[in-house]
C-alpha cells in the first residue's frame, strides 16, 4: 500500500506544479448571535421547529417534568447512562424499570428498550442542535440510537448561540453525535417525514438556572 500512497502524493505534487497562490481565508461571517437575542428562547423555538417537544423548567421541578414525560410515553424500560444523577429520576414511578449499561447491553436488548435519558455536552440555539460526546451522562452512542424515544435534559448554561461557539467547546477526540430534531427523511417526493431509524420521538427539557 506504501506504493499507492507515494504515487498519489506524487501525482498531487505534480498537479500543483503551477503553485497556486495562497490567499487568506476571509472569516467575515457571524460567529455569535445578535446581542439582543435570548439564546435559551431561540434554542427552544428552533428545537420545536423540528417537531421535537420542548419543556422549560426550573431545576427544582426537573424530576417532576422527567416523570411526566416518561409517564406520557408509557415507558416501561428506560435506559439510564451511569452519569445521570439519581435526583432527575426521583419522581419517576417505580413501574419504570431503570436499565443501566454496565455490563454493556447487547443490541437486541437495547432495541427492546422504550426510551433513553441523557444530557448533552453543548446545545446550539441558532440551529436547535444538541451535541452528545459520549460522556458518562450520555454513555455509548448506541444508547441514544436504538431506543425509539430520546429524552434529553439540557442545562441552560450549556446552550451556546452558534455553531462556531459550539465547536470551541467540543473535544474532537470524543465521538460526537449532533442531533437536530428526531430522525427524518425527505426522500419520497421531498416530503418531510419525521421518524425513520433513529429515535422517532425527541423531547428536550431545558433546565433554567435556579434563582
Amino acid at each position, binding site marked *: 500500500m506504501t506504493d499507492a500512497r507515494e504515487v498519489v502524493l506524487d501525482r498531487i505534487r505534480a498537479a500543483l506544479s503551477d503553485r497556486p497562490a495562497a490567499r487568506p481565508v476571509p472569516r467575515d461571517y457571524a460567529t455569535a448571535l445578535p446581542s439582543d437575542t435570548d439564546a435559551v428562547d431561540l434554542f427552544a423555538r428552533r428545537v420545536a421547529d423540528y417537531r421535537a417537544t420542548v419543556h422549560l423548567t426550573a431545576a427544582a421541578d426537573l424530576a417532576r417534568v422527567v416523570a411526566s414525560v416518561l409517564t406520557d410515553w408509557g415507558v416501561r424500560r428506560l435506559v439510564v447512562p451511569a452519569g445521570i444523577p439519581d435526583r432527575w429520576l426521583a419522581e419517576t414511578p417505580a413501574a419504570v424499570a431503570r436499565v443501566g449499561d454496565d455490563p454493556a447491553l447487547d443490541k437486541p436488548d437495547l432495541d427492546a428498550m422504550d426510551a433513553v435519558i441523557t444530557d448533552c455536552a453543548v446545545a446550539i440555539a441558532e440551529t436547535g442542535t444538541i451535541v452528545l460526546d459520549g460522556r458518562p451522562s450520555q454513555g455509548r452512542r448506541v444508547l441514544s440510537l436504538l431506543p425509539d424515544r430520546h429524552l434529553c435534559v439540557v442545562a441552560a448554561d450549556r446552550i451556546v448561540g452558534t455553531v462556531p461557539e459550539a465547536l470551541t467547546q467540543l473535544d474532537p477526540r470524543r465521538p460526537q453525535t449532533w442531533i437536530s430534531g428526531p430522525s427524518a427523511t425527505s426522500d419520497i417526493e*421531498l416530503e418531510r417525514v419525521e421518524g425513520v*431509524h433513529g429515535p422517532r420521538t425527541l423531547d428536550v427539557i431545558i433546565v433554567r438556572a435556579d434563582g
Partner: protein
Amino acid sequence: MPAHPSFAGTPPFPEAARLALADPQLRANLARATATIRTKRARAVAERDDWEALRLAGAAIKDETLRDLPALLAQLEAGVTAAGGVVHWARDAAEANAIVVGLVREAGVDEVVKVKSMATQEIELNAALAEAGIAAWETDLAELIVQLGEDLPSHILVPAIHRNRREVRAIFEREMGRMGRPAPADLSDDPRALAEAARLHLREKFLRAKVAISGANFAVAETGTVMVVESEGNGRMCLTLPDVLITVMGIEKLLPTWRDLEVFLQLLPRSSTAERMNPYTSMWTGVTPGDGPQAFHLVLLDNGRTDTLVDPVGRQALRCIKCSACLNVCPVYERTGGRAYGSPYPGPIGAILTPQLRGINRGPVDAQTASLPYASSLCGACFEVCPVRIDIPEVLVHLRAKVVEQHGWRAHASEESVLMAAMGWTFRSPRRLGLVERAGGLGGRLIGRGGHIRRAPGPGLLRAWLRGRDLETPSRESFRRWWHRTGRHEDRA
C-alpha cells in the same frame, strides 16, 4: 443478492436526454421535487445575512485544502493512525474496491450495510462486492428505493427523486421480500408508511451487521476526525453498531482545521436539505474503546482527482461538498433528470466533474463524457447557489474548448439542438421568453449589497431562469451565437 446496474453504456447526453424528455412521469416527478427544494433552500439561505461571507470562506478554505493537499493528507493519516485507525491509499477504483473486498473478507462476513456514499457509487463498489459474493445493503431510504428497483441514482442527495410515492410503494411491495423482511401487507403510498416499511425492513440488517461501509462528508486533517451528515439515522446505525467500519473518501474531502467545520456545518445543510441543520451529524476520530466499531479503516481515493487537480481552471470542481443545490436550480437537470448524465454525479457539477475525473485534462475522452460539458445552457444559476462558489459556467466553457480541441467542433453540433428541446418550455412561449428577456433589463437593478446579485421575482422555474439571467451577463449572448463564436475560434486556433 441485490443487482447492481451500472452507468456504463449510457449514450451521449443528447440521446440520453431525448429518452428522458419522452417520459412525462419522470418530468412531472422531477419538476415537483426540484421546485419544492428550490423554494426551501432560498428560505434557509435568506435567513443568514452573512451567507455570502460564508460562501467566500468556504471557497477559500477548500482552495487552501487543495493547495496544501500532500501535507494535509499526511497529517490526517497520522491523526487517524494515532487514534487506532488504519489508512489505505487507492490510486483508482479497482484498487479501492480490492482493498474494501479484502477487508470484508478478513472480517469473515458475506454482507455489509452501507451509508449513502458518492465515492462508493463512483467506484461501483457494490458490484465489486457482489462479484466477491458479498451483499451490500444500502440503508439510506432513497438508496434503498434505487437498489430495490434495480435502478440507477438520479440525484446526489435524493437518488430516487425520479420516483413518486406510488412507484415507491410498488417497488417495496414487489422487492422487499426478496431481500429480507417483506413490506407490510396493507402498505399505503403515504410517505410515512413507506418510511416505516423501510425502518422495519432495515432494522434486522442493522442489528446483525458486522461490517459497515460509509463515505465521508469531511475529514479534519488537524485532528484526524471523520464526519458523516445524514437525516434518517441509518448513518448512525452503520457508524455505531458494526464491529468494523470502512470509510471510502476522496482525497479532496479534507478540511485543514477543526475550526473550519464552523463554515461547512453551516453551508452544507442549508444548501442541500435546506435545513438549519440536518438531523444527525456523526464525528469520530479513529476508534473509541468500548463505543462503536473497534476497527476503523479509512480508504483515501484518487480515481481521477489528481487528474482534475492538474487544471488550474477545472480544479475548482474539487471544492464540491456534494450538496446538490446546483442540480435543483438547473433548468436542464429539471427536464432530463440525473440518469441522462451517465454518472453518479449528475447536473451542473457532474457536467464539470465527471469529464475531469475521466481524464479530459489529460487527453481525448469517450463521446458520452465529451458530451457532458454541453449539458447546460450556461444560465449561471448553478454558480449563484454553489456554497463554495464553483464557477460552473466558467469551467463548462473551459471544458467545451478542450472537447473542441480534442474532437473538432462539429462533433457536438447536435448537443445544441437537444438543449433547445430541453429548454423548449421557456422558448416555445412568447410570454415566458419575453419575461426572460425582460429580466436582462432587471439585472442591473437587482444587484444588491456588495455587488452580489439578488433573487429575481417570479414563480418557480421561471425565477430560477431569471435568477440565472440576472447573474450571468455572458448568457445574454445566445447559446447558438456563443457556440459558433467559440467553436470557430477554437477550430482555427
